[in-house]
């Protein structure tokens, strides 16, 4: 696959990393991703008014020249630094041959500044400039990206960091790390292949020999029962990512593993890593072998510190972690795609040119009964090991609000657009996710997250809205409640000023990162204060509840942030009035 690195090649790259070639490399990747990073009390680099120019241009990506959409000549785009309490003045000029847009992901702003063509404005026509103006009312790690067609897949995105009023970053130094997935194919071709040839990019399917192995290991009967169940549903336990490392080159700050993005530190320093998943379709598992990480913010919002060794980051999510490397040696920052089809690594190092061992890709995981919404049925020998731990936890765990919510499916299912119904959806917030159940270190789970302080609206919800995440892999149809965006009559109505509970039920075999524009979602994970999120990853057959204060007047996008799922119809408009 694209990301395998042969040792001789690695050796070459290492020796080539002289000062001169480092300069040459700096040209092909964003200048903000500089190895030095920023220090506490550095002057804020942002000018008063930020000008962004969107243009298509050839650029070296990994080992080949691609034609990404660049922002001010870079892919990913420039790091924009704003300061809490100040007005944002962002002018976006479109030099493409088609309409474009910029959406400020996770930012609370007026509806006409949100940047979603067809919902907040008409978009930016070729040759035109749109002037975004809004007051910055928050701080933290965010990002921005195109909301037009599949432009995001072409690299039309960048990090957006907002300094708090006092400028304190809670560390001695910080680095921003944005993860993306790049393909040299036309994104429209990728979408068409998903539409016409199910499983096109999946090279991890079960084979006849896997079946023989299973029979040898767990016996004919269990293998038969298990195959029978998947076969009856016409689902695959290896259907994890729709688009994989077979076409993707995974990038860290625009560099592939060979180019090895590096961030400097001095031993003993506290380094804040602002990690953003800006990819179109890829969840990543992130770890730094030899270093523990303390999570201090989720989706830009502060959380009470949690120390972990690895975390899974869904598409469009962001985590801030603090690491404190004490030894004067290099550490690998390793981001593995969650279907194990590839990875990207970077290096935290005391001096440029060093690198640390790169971990092996872990084996391809398989989904188990929990993914089918059969978590309560006793099936032994399932590969998703979390089931046993779930069962033992069940008795001691405090019930979550969502545990008591009855899940209703439409009569007779959700129509041809939904190939599956979660028979018994459960809360899975305490599960680290597929393939991470049995690792021998601490992995972040949503139930670890606790808000750093109380949020302004402490009311109980007055109303509950239930939405089902639905899909049909065979025709690549994705939707809410079995209805694609083009099939629904109108928006989801929020009454302005109300406090409501949104219940999401995942009736599919895939993880979906669900994003609400314009308002925060407080995750009901049993902690108080609750963590606030702009994007929530929902596991197969999971039910999740979120509290929302409907305080943002207007129309807002609500969608799955897997780019091709959104394009296929997993999109709604929320109207607050």
């Amino acid at each position, binding site marked *: 696959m694209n990301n395998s690195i042969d040792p001789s090649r690695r050796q070459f790259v290492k020796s080539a990393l002289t000062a001169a070639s480092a300069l040459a490399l700096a040209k092909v990747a964003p200048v903000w991703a500089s190895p030095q990073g920023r220090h506490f009390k550095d002057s804020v680099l942002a000018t008063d008014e930020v000008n962004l120019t969107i243009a298509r241009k050839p650029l070296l990506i990994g080992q080949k020249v691609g034609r990404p959409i660049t922002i001010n000549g870079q892919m990913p785009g420039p790091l924009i630094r704003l300061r809490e309490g100040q007005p944002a003045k962002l002018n976006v000029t479109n030099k493409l041959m088609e309409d474009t847009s910029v959406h400020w992901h996770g930012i609370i702003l007026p509806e006409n500044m949100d940047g979603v063509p067809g919902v907040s*404005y008409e978009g930016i026509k070729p040759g035109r400039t749109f002037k975004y103006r809004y007051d910055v009312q928050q701080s933290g790690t965010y990002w921005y990206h195109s909301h037009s067609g599949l432009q995001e897949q072409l690299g039309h995105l960048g990090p957006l960091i907002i300094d708090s009023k006092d400028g304190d970053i809670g560390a001695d130094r910080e680095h921003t790390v944005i993860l993306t997935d790049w393909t040299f194919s036309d994104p429209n071709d990728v979408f068409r*292949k998903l539409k*016409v040839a199910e499983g096109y990019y999946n090279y991890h399917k079960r084979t*006849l020999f896997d079946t023989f192995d299973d029979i040898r290991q767990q016996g004919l009967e269990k293998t038969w029962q298990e195959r029978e169940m998947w076969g009856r549903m016409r689902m695959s336990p290896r259907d994890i990512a729709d688009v994989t490392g077979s076409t993707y080159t995974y990038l860290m700050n625009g560099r592939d593993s060979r180019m090895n993005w590096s961030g400097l530190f001095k031993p003993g320093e506290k380094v804040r890593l602002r990690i953003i998943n800006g990819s179109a379709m890829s969840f990543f598992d992130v770890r730094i072998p030899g270093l523990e990480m303390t999570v201090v913010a989720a989706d830009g919002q502060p959380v009470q510190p949690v120390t972990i060794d690895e975390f899974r980051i869904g598409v469009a999510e962001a985590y801030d972690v603090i690491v404190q490397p004490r030894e004067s040696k290099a550490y690998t920052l390793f981001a593995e795609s969650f279907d194990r089809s590839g990875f990207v690594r970077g290096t935290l190092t005391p001096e440029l040119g060093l690198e640390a061992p790169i971990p092996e890709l872990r084996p391809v995981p398989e989904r188990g009964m929990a993914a089918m919404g059969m978590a309560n049925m006793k099936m032994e020998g399932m590969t998703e090991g979390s089931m046993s731990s779930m069962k033992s936890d069940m008795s001691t765990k405090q019930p979550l609000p969502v545990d008591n919510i009855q899940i209703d499916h439409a009569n007779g299912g959700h129509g041809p657009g939904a*190939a599956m119904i979660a028979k018994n959806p459960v809360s899975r917030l305490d599960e680290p996710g597929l393939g991470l159940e049995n690792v021998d270190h601490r992995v972040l789970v949503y139930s670890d997250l606790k808000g750093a302080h109380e949020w302004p609206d402490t009311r109980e919800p007055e109303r509950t809205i239930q939405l089902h995440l639905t899909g049909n892999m065979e025709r690549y149809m994705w939707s809410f409640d079995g209805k694609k965006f083009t099939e629904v009559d109108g928006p989801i109505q929020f009454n302005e000023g109300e406090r409501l509970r949104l219940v999401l039920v995942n009736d599919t075999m895939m993880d979906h990162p669900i994003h609400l524009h314009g308002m925060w979602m407080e995750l009901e994970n049993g902690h108080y204060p609750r963590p606030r999120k702009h994007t929530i990853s929902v596991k197969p057959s999971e039910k999740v509840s979120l509290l929302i204060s409907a305080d943002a007047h207007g129309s807002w996008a609500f969608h799955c942030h897997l780019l091709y799922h959104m394009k296929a119809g997993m999109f709604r408009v929320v109207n607050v009035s």
Partner: protein
Amino acid sequence: MKNFLLLLGGLFPLIASAGHAKDDWPEPVSDHYTGRVLFDRLEIARTNQHEQSAVWDMMAWYGGDYHRLVFKTEGENVQNDGAPTDIEKAELLYGYLVSPFWSIQAGVGARGELSSDSSFEHYAVLSFSGLAPYWFEMDNSLMVNEEGDIQLRSETEYEWRLSQTAYLQPRVEITANVTDSEKYRRESGLSNLRVGLRYRQEISREFAPYIGVYWNQALGNTADRLQREGRQTHETGIVVGARVWF
């Protein structure tokens, strides 16, 4: 013709406004229309009678998620026998997705020998096509010709994955006549069974050469008639070909 236009109208409904956008704004997400041409079999077959023929089995569609225009054709040309190409089917259908894995298709078809003097048999066809539980890919058709003769045909394919790019594909096709037909020399009852097994290796997802074997057996009254006429009731052969799509 009028029906055909109506059918096209069903395939491409006016872009329905989802009612969120202002008039001159684009829709944030719109429906997607695409198509695919698949030669499931494109092969040279050599029979146990040392006859060689070129065979095709093609399916093409265009449309959206629910409504599709489908074209299916299958046929063969026996080489060096001087006989014209035999078109086993050429069907144009409208397909509608009725459940997550199944669609109903209705349309018209023609078959016969492709020569200037022969007359084609025309028929109406109704198909139930999709993916059955346990991953059986099926296409079941009911055909009624101008004479009122009714024929049923069922095709089933399965795939054993040997590696991520290699497959073993069994294939079964059964034909049955509900009625006798003098004009087309068909006997009622089960008439034909065709079983094949192909080993396919993908060069890319779109292009996959294969080799295989098949066995063709006449059944029931059809076999009796062939025997009476002193003709073969079964045939075996080997095939070399490729599965190609674009």
